[in-house]
């Protein structure tokens, strides 16, 4: 326990774990945009046929 506590402050300074997630958010954003566009298109199709 004591050893773990001793090590933990060091991990925070480790920059490798906090690596850039830019690529990930771009990918997630792309998937999200596809979902939103498809939902909006189907919503528009439904409303145009009311």
């Amino acid at each position: 326990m004591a050893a773990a506590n001793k090590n933990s402050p060091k991990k925070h300074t480790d920059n490798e774990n906090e690596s850039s997630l830019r690529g990930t958010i771009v990918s997630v954003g792309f998937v999200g945009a596809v979902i939103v566009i498809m939902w909006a298109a189907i919503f528009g199709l439904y409303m145009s046929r009311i």
Partner: protein
Amino acid sequence: MHRLEEMWIAISTGILIIFMVVVGYQTFALGMGPPSNKETIDPQKVDQTEPFDEPGISKIGDNEYEVVMTLQAFGFTPNNIEVPAGAKVNFIMTSKDVTHGFQIAGTNINAMVMPGHIQKISHTFDKPGEYLVLCNEYCGTGHQLMSTTITVK
């Protein structure tokens, strides 16, 4: 947690909530849910049971019509529906044999008509024209022939 992780969790949760609120409002406040009438009928006595003993179209209000329809392999009864433009039509349907579909191309009407169940759906036909009606549940060897038209003048 990474700042970007927090961001996409918040955005995706927000999008889901917006979708559910919009669809929930449409369904429960505007009555736009899928057709889900809960009446039942003896499927072997459809011809003797009101109102299906006299299938047809009748005027029930100011430019409002009621269509009592039976579906059977491989046709719709009645199959010569004609209404004026702007008419609201309430369809009351049941099947005499197997599960059929009732879809009007170009509209939001798409109902499953099952034997033993009475299905209801309404639509206001604003645009004049010939509307194609199709069975979209495979119902047997003549399924592809099961179609009719609704004429809106």
